[in-house]
C-alpha cells in the first residue's frame, strides 16, 4: 500500500508524458502547440531522473554517502572546496551548456521536429546523462583526475595519449565550426557586426575597472557591462541606418575570417583579466538569463510548431546537411543528447567541488537533463518559424539561388509554400537586408527566439531588437569559447611540442607562447577559411566532422565507464554504459565511413574530390572555384577532411581494442581491479 502511494504521483507524470508524446508523435496535418513538446520532455526527464538515475546510483555504482570526496581530502578553499549541491549544479550547468545544444537541433529540424526530439530525449536518458554521471563518479573516486589521466590509469599510457590527442583535434574542429557560425551570422550584417564588435571595448573597460578601479566587484561590473551591451544593440540599429557607417560594418565572409583569425591571435595573447575574463562574465550571465527567458517565453506564448513532424528530407537529400536519418541525425545533434566534451568537464573542476559522492547523481545526471532541455527549446524555436523561411535561411545559394524570387520558387517546389515577399518581409522584420543562405544555426535560432520573445515583450516593433539580442548572446559566448579554446589548445600544443623542443614548454617565454598561439590559430583558421569558401556552405562539411569527433569522445568516455564497471566486478550492470557506447560506435563509424567513401559527392569527401579532380583533368572550372588553383584547393581540402575522419576513426578503434583487452583481463580474475583511491570515511560533521 505504501509502495503504491509512493509511486502513484510518478505514474501520473508517466501518463502525462506518454499522452504528450503521443500527441507530438501522432498529430499529422495540423500544427500542435510547443507546450506538448515541453511537457513530453519534462515528464521524460522526471521519470528518468527518479527511476533510472536512482538505479544507476544505488545498484550500478553504489554511491557511498560516507566516503570522503576529493573536495574534503584536498580542501584548500580554492580549487578543492566542498560546495553546496545546488550551487555546484549551477556551476556545472554553466560549464557544459554552450553553443552545441543550440545549433545541432536547429540544423536537425530539416527532417521535421520529431526525429530530433526523439533522439534528444532517448539520447540524454540512456547515453548523455549516463556518461556525465559515470565520468563524474569515476573521477571523484580517483582524486578528481582528468579524462586523459583516467584512461591512462585504467587502460594504459598509450590509450591515454590517444584519447588526449583525439580531444585536441576535436577542439580544433570545434573552434573552426564555432567561428564559422559567427561568420555566417555577421557577414553583410552591419547591425550584428557593430553590436558584437562593440563588446570588445566594453569588455576592455570592464577588465580595467575590475583590475584597478573596483577590484573583484563582479556583480557591479556585470550590470554596467550589460547596460552597455543593450546600448550597443541600439547603436547597431543606428549604424545600420547610417549611410556612411553602414558600409564600414558590412563585411564579406572572407574579410570576417581574417578579422576573426587576427582577433583570436591577439585575444589569446593578452592577459586574461583584460579581455577574456570580463567577457566570460557577460557571456555566462547572459547565457543563463537568456535560457531562462526563452523557457518563460515558450510557456507564455505556446507557439504552434509550423514545421511538419517529418519532412521528406528524413530519407536523405536535405539542403542543410547531406545524408539520411541514420546515421547522420545522431551526429548532427551531439550536445543535448550526448556530448563527449562533457567528459572533460565532469573530470575537470566539478569533481573537485563535490561535497558528497551521492550528489554526483543530481549534478552529473541532472545537469545533463537541463542541457537537454536547452536543446529541446532550440528545436522548438526553429520549428515555430515558417518552414519556407527556415529552408531559405539554411540552404546554400548553390542549391536554391541567390535572390528572393528564385529561392522562394525553388523551396515552394519542395512543398514548403513561400513567396519572395515573405522572405523580404522576414528580413525586414528583424532589421536585416537579407536572411538568405545563413546556415549555421545561430541566425535561425535568433529568428525563432525573436518570433517568441517579441510576443512577450515589445511587440512587432521590438522584433529586430530581439533578433540582434539573440545574435549578440550567441556570438558573445562563442567568441569567449574561441579565446579560451585557443588558450587551452596552446597549452596542449606547448606540451606536445615540448617533447621535441624543450624550450617550447616554457609558458613564461613570449616566443614560445606566440609560436604556439600562432600555430593553434592558423590550424582552426585554416578549417574556418575552408568552411567559408565551401560551395555547399561549410556547415555541411565541418558540422559532421565536429559531430563525429564529439560523439567519438563520448564513446571513449562510455568505454572507460564500461571498463571501470567490469573492473569493479559489476559485470551484470555493464550494459548501462555498454549499450550507449555500442550505439555511438555504430553511428559514428557508419557516418565516418559514409563521409569518406560515399559515392554521392554531396556526402562523401573523396567522391567530391574526384568530381573536382575530373573537372580539372578536362580543364573545366566548377563553382564556386574561379581558377584551376582554387579547384586544386577544393580537392586538397576534401582529402584533408577525409584524412581527419580516418584519424578520428583510428582513435576510437584503438581505444575500443584497449578496452576489450582490459575487460578480458578484468574478467579473468576474481578480484576487484578498479584503481580507486583508498576509501576514507567522512567524519560525521562533514556529511551533507
Amino acid at each position: 500500500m505504501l509502495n503504491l502511494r509512493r509511486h502513484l504521483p510518478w505514474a501520473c507524470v508517466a501518463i502525462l508524458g506518454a499522452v504528450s508524446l503521443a500527441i507530438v508523435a501522432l498529430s499529422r496535418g495540423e500544427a500542435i502547440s510547443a507546450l506538448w513538446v515541453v511537457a513530453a520532455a519534462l515528464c521524460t526527464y522526471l521519470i528518468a531522473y527518479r527511476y533510472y538515475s536512482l538505479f544507476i546510483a544505488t545498484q550500478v555504482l553504489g554511491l557511498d554517502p560516507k566516503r570522503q570526496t576529493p573536495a574534503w581530502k584536498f580542501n584548500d578553499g580554492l580549487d578543492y572546496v566542498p560546495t553546496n549541491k545546488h550551487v555546484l549544479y549551477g556551476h556545472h550547468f554553466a560549464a557544459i551548456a554552450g553553443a552545441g545544444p543550440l545549433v545541432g537541433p536547429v540544423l536537425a529540424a530539416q527532417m521535421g521536429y520529431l526525429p530530433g526530439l526523439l533522439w534528444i530525449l532517448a539520447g540524454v536518458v540512456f547515453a548523455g546523462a549516463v556518461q556525465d554521471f559515470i565520468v563524474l563518479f569515476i573521477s571523484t573516486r580517483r582524486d578528481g583526475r582528468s579524462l586523459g589521466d583516467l584512461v591512462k590509469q585504467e587502460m594504459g599510457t598509450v590509450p591515454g595519449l590517444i584519447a588526449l590527442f583525439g580531444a585536441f583535434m576535436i577542439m580544433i574542429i570545434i573552434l573552426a565550426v564555432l567561428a564559422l557560425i559567427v561568420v555566417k551570422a555577421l557577414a553583410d550584417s552591419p547591425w550584428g557586426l557593430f553590436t558584437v564588435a562593440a563588446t570588445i571595448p566594453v569588455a576592455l573597460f570592464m577588465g580595467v575597472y575590475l583590475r584597478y578601479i573596483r577590484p573583484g566587484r563582479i556583480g557591479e561590473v556585470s550590470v554596467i557591462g550589460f547596460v552597455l551591451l543593450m546600448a550597443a544593440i541600439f547603436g547597431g540599429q543606428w549604424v545600420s541606418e547610417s549611410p556612411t557607417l553602414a558600409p564600414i560594418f558590412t563585411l564579406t565572409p572572407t574579410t570576417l575570417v581574417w578579422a576573426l583569425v587576427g582577433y583570436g591571435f591577439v585575444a589569446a595573447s593578452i592577459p586574461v583579466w583584460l579581455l577574456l575574463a570580463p567577457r566570460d562574465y557577460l557571456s555566462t550571465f547572459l547565457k543563463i538569463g537568456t535560457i531562462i527567458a526563452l523557457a518563460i517565453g515558450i510557456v507564455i506564448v505556446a507557439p504552434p510548431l509550423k514545421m511538419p513532424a517529418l519532412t521528406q528530407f528524413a530519407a536523405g537529400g536535405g539542403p542543410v546537411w547531406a545524408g539520411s536519418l541514420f546515421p547522420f541525425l545522431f551526429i548532427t545533434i551531439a550536445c543535448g543528447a550526448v556530448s563527449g566534451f562533457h567528459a572533460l568537464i565532469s573530470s575537470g573542476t566539478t569533481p573537485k567541488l563535490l561535497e558528497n559522492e551521492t550528489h554526483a547523481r543530481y549534478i552529473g545526471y541532472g545537469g545533463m537533463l537541463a542541457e537537454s532541455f536547452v536543446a529541446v527549446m532550440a528545436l522548438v524555436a526553429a520549428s515555430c518559424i515558417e518552414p519556407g523561411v527556415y529552408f531559405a535561411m539554411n540552404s546554400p545559394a548553390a542549391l536554391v539561388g541567390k535572390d528572393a524570387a528564385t529561392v522562394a520558387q525553388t523551396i515552394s517546389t519542395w512543398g514548403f509554400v513561400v513567396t519572395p515577399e515573405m522572405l523580404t518581409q522576414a528580413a525586414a522584420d528583424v532589421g536585416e537586408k537579407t536572411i538568405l543562405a545563413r546556415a549555421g544555426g545561430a541566425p535561425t535560432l535568433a529568428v525563432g527566439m525573436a518570433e517568441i520573445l517579441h510576443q512577450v515583450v515589445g511587440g512587432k516593433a521590438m522584433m529586430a531588437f530581439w533578433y540582434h539580442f539573440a545574435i549578440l548572446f550567441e556570438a558573445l559566448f562563442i567568441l569567449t569559447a574561441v579565446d579560451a579554446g585557443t588558450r587551452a589548445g596552446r597549452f596542449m600544443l606547448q606540451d606536445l611540442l615540448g617533447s621535441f623542443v624543450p624550450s617550447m614548454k616554457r609558458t613564461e617565454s613570449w616566443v614560445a607562447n606566440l609560436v604556439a598561439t600562432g600555430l593553434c590559430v592558423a590550424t582552426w583558421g585554416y578549417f574556418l577559411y575552408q568552411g567559408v569558401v565551401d560551395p555547399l556552405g561549410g556547415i555541411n562539411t565541418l558540422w559532421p566532422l565536429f559531430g563525429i569527433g564529439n560523439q567519438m569522445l563520448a564513446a571513449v568516455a562510455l568505454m572507460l565507464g564500461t571498463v571501470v564497471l567490469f573492473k569493479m566486478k559489476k559485470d551484470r550492470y555493464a550494459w548501462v554504459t555498454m549499450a550507449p557506447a555500442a550505439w555511438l560506435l555504430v553511428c559514428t563509424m557508419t557516418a565516418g565511413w559514409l563521409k569518406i567513401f560515399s559515392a554521392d559527392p554531396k556526402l562523401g569527401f573523396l567522391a567530391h574530390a574526384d568530381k573536382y579532380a575530373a573537372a580539372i583533368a578536362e580543364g573545366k572550372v566548377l563553382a564556386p572555384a574561379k581558377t584551376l588553383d582554387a579547384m586544386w584547393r577544393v580537392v586538397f581540402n576534401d582529402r584533408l577532411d577525409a584524412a581527419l575522419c580516418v584519424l578520428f576513426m583510428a582513435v576510437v578503434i584503438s581505444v575500443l581494442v584497449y578496452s576489450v583487452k582490459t575487460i578480458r583481463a578484468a574478467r579473468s580474475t576474481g578480484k576487484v581491479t578498479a584503481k580507486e583511491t583508498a576509501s576514507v570515511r567522512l567524519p560525521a560533521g562533514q556529511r551533507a
Partner: protein
Amino acid sequence: MRDLAQAGRYLTQSLRLMVGVPDYGTYLAHHQATHPERPAMSYEEFFNERQAARYASRAGKCC
C-alpha cells in the same frame, strides 16, 4: 524569511562560481582553521589568483 535569505546567498555563490570565483568566506574560514599562522589573501588578491587559475587550465570550454 531565513530560507529566502539562504536561497539568495546560494544564488550569488552559484553565479560567482559559474565564472570561477569560489566563496571568499569559505576560503577565509578554511585558512583560519588550517594555517592561522600564515596571512590570508585579501579579497582582491584572492580574486586575481582565481581569475588567473581559471584560464590556465588545459580543459577549455564546452562546445
